[in-house]
């Protein structure tokens, strides 16, 4: 079933911040497993996107990694700590989790109170809180909104507050479970820019779930799940350029891959790898000049 697989599997434990070993998960009352025999490592400091059609088990995998669901069989390690009941506090501190619905994860009555919520749970002292709240809000560019109530914020702003809440606990991994799917284009762009910033400047490992191909191309690696199995795990340019693979699993194609598909149908030979828009433009320019 596995179509692509790249290194980072066994024996690479020291580099992996998250390590999943032969994970199988069945929801109580279901006969079919939602995840079957998943093994993969997430390398520290990279941005990995999980794609897959609805019901492929993407969210379940993310929740299992954060210990939000009990593991049936297999093992997960986060920062070399096994994900188990007794370690959950440490796991929750190492993983910041941002969910899909901006409203349903806003706990506090104001922005600052919401960021404080996680700090209170992790018993950060009262004296340290104002600084850590301000620092986290500063990272997401929301300091001027500290005293605002959620009703005054847009969806994108609420998601940035959720990210600040995660950052304030100084985690190592950030998980985004379709965190941009309910946002307008502007809010989405801002959140995605923020992700890139957090990865490059702050060295976070990012695990993002998305069914938007334009989002999947932003990361370093892509994991493709379908029907509870790991179908492919590889570099973004390999997987997101493979229109055959993506279409077979009922996934959308990124813009440049769609365009190449169109060219190919008309008898033009195109490179197989995914190209960013700039790369594609350079390639098109070369094609044109080589014909002259």
């Amino acid at each position, binding site marked *: 079933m596995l179509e692509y697989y790249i290194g980072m599997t066994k024996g690479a434990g020291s580099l992996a911040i998250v390590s999943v070993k032969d994970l199988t998960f069945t929801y109580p009352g279901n006969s079919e497993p939602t995840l079957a025999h998943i093994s993969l490592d997430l390398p520290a400091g990279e941005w990995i996107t999980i794609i897959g059609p609805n019901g492929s088990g993407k969210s379940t995998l993310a929740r299992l990694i954060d210990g*939000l669901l009990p593991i049936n069989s297999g093992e997960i390690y986060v920062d070399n700590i096994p994900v188990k009941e007794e370690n959950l506090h440490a796991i929750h*501190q190492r993983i910041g989790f941002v969910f899909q619905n901006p409203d*349903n994860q806003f*706990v506090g009555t104001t922005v600052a109170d919401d960021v404080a919520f996680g700090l209170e749970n992790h018993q950060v002292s009262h004296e340290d809180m104002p600084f850590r709240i301000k620092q986290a809000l500063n990272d997401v560019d929301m300091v001027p909104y500290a005293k605002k109530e959620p*009703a005054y914020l847009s969806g994108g702003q609420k998601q940035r507050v959720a990210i600040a*809440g995660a950052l304030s606990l100084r985690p190592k991994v950030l998980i985004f479970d379709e965190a941009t799917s309910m946002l307008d284009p502007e809010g989405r762009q801002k959140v995605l820019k923020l992700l890139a910033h957090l990865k490059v400047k702050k060295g976070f490992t990012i695990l993002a779930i998305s069914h938007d191909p334009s989002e999947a191309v932003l990361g370093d690696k892509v994991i493709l799940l379908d029907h509870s199995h790991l179908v492919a795990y590889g570099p973004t340019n390999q997987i997101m350029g493979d229109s055959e693979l993506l279409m077979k699993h009922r996934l959308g194609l990124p813009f440049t891959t769609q365009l190449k598909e169109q060219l190919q149908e008309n008898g033009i030979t195109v490179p197989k790898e995914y190209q960013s828009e700039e790369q594609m433009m350079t390639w098109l320019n070369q094609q044109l000049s080589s014909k002259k």
Partner: protein
Amino acid sequence: MNSKVFFGLYVPTNSILHRLDPRMKIIACFWYVVIVFLANNVLTNVLLGLFLLFLIWLSKVSLKMYWQGIKPLMWVILLTAAVQLFFSTGGQPIWQWHFLNITSLGIIQSIYLIFRFAFIITISTVLTVTTTTLQLAAGIESLLKPLSYLKVPVSQLAMMLSIALRFIPTIMDEIQTIMDAQRARGMDFSAGNLFQRAKRLVPVMIPLFVSSFKRADDLALAMEARGYQPGAPRTAYRQLRWHMNDNWAFLTYVVLTVALIVLRQI
């Protein structure tokens, strides 16, 4: 944009009363309600009335706001006063008809009753116009803290209260949207008798329940991911501070109570 924010009655004038500790304000409100029942003559009622006017002046909130607090309850007040007026005995009988009678004492008592009601409603309005719901919740939590020695889960109750306050505007919005959606599907909320109208709530209440459960589920998961464990010790970001002004407020109440007791004797 419509009902997005649950304002309550809070009026942000940042007066000296706004800056008092919410615990002091809650205590003061209850205290006042208790001493209202000590007032038994003209002088004591005048004293309480003047004190209340003093608070209203301090709050920098217009009298109109306070009147709006009393207005909806006016009928209840008048009805109770009427019952008092027609059914109380004692004093000089003035007028009688079957079992109804008006006595001089009845008149005086029903006037006091009107004042008592007005005082109690107004003092609670003083509390709510000068204190945000957030501060009220924090104050109540702090005042209830001793109950946790009796195994009452005060911090969990406080968390519930604060989440309820947080989600009121969200849910009000949701109700509006669901009602609009069902109206667009041809539903008429206003026609028919009481029973038919009650039946029409089904297409609003069920979607509301469904989405509220979904919300609660999402929220519980998000809270767990952020390290919340019911009953586990937590630190507090918001801590209430008792200032010098709160001491002064307390002292004022002591003086008021003593004065009231003295005036009672006259």
